[in-house]
C-alpha cells in the first residue's frame, strides 16, 4: 500500500495491517528487539528521480503486500539540504533476507548495490554524527534549537542502544 501524503517529505510503502498498528520490523513473523534491529536491520539504497522511484514503488508494492519486503520509504524530492541531487529510496529489511530482496530490486532495474545497516544510520544521526550535524547546519537552527534536536536524537536513538532486549518501536517520520 503506497502512502503518499503531500505534507510529508517521504512516501511510504507499507503492508495495510501496519496502518492499523502491526509492526513492520518483523523477521519470520517475530517482532525484532532493539538489539536485533542494530544487528540485522538495514536498507538497500536506491537513487533516482521521483518519476522513476514512483514507478519502482508501484512494482515493489506487491512484494510488500505479500510480506516479502517489510517496508519502503522514499523522498518526495531530493533532500538538497543534505547535499543530494537525487531522491533516495530505502528498501528496508532484515539482512538475513537481504539477498532475496536484492534479487527483486535487481530484476526491477536497480543496479547500484548499496546496503546500509540501521546501526550505521543511527550512529550518523546521534549527536556529533555527520548527518545530524549536517542537518542542523542546513536548517540554520539556533543554538537552543540545535541543543534540543541533539538531546531528542540522543534520547530516541540512545534508548535503542541502551535497551537491546526491548521490542523495537518505530516512530513516525
Amino acid at each position, binding site marked *: 500500500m503506497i502512502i503518499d501524503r503531500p505534507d510529508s517529505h517521504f512516501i511510504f510503502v507499507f503492508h495495510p495491517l501496519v496502518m492499523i498498528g502491526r509492526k513492520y520490523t518483523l523477521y519470520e513473523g517475530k517482532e525484532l528487539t532493539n538489539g536485533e534491529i542494530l544487528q540485522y536491520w538495514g536498507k538497500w539504497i536506491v537513487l533516482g*528521480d521521483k518519476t522513476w522511484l514512483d514507478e519502482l514503488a508501484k512494482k515493489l508494492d506487491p512484494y510488500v503486500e505479500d510480506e516479502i519486503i517489510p517496508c519502503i520509504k522514499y523522498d518526495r524530492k531530493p533532500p538538497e539540504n543534505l547535499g543530494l541531487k537525487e531522491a533516495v529510496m530505502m528498501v528496508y529489511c532484515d539482512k538475513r533476507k537481504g539477498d532475496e530482496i536484492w534479487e527483486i530490486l535487481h530484476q526491477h532495474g536497480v543496479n547500484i548495490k*548499496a546496503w546500509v545497516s540501521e546501526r550505521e*544510520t543511527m550512529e550518523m544521526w546521534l549527536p556529533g554524527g555527520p548527518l545530524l550535524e549536517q542537518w542542523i547546519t542546513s536548517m540554520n537552527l539556533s543554538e537552543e534549537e540545535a541543543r534540543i534536536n541533539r538531546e531528542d536524537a540522543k534520547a530516541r536513538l540512545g534508548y535503542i542502544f541502551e535497551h537491546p532486549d526491548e521490542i523495537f518501536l518505530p516512530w513516525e517520520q
Partner: protein
Amino acid sequence: MRDVSITILVPNSLKDLLRGNNQATCAGKTIKECISDLDSKFPGFSNNILNEKGEVNKSFMIFLDGQNILALNALDTSVKDGDEVSIIPFAAGG
C-alpha cells in the same frame, strides 16, 4: 591470461566522476588500485574520491557487492575479476 575487470557503478548525480557515464571498468587487486586505474582513465577521479590523507572522502560511500568497504578492509579491500563496486553520496546512506 585474462585481464582482471572490475565494474564501477555510480548514480546519475555522480556521473561527472566518470565523465558522464554511470559505469566504467577498471583493473586492480584492491579498491585502492582500482581508484588509481580509474584516475588514469578519468583524471581527477582520485582527488574527488579520496581526501588529502588518501582515505575515502567523507562525501562518498563505497560498496563492494553491496557491503560498505569501511566494514571490510577499506581501500585495501581485495577485489577480483567480475566484482562490482558502487559509489553513492554519503548522505544517501542516512
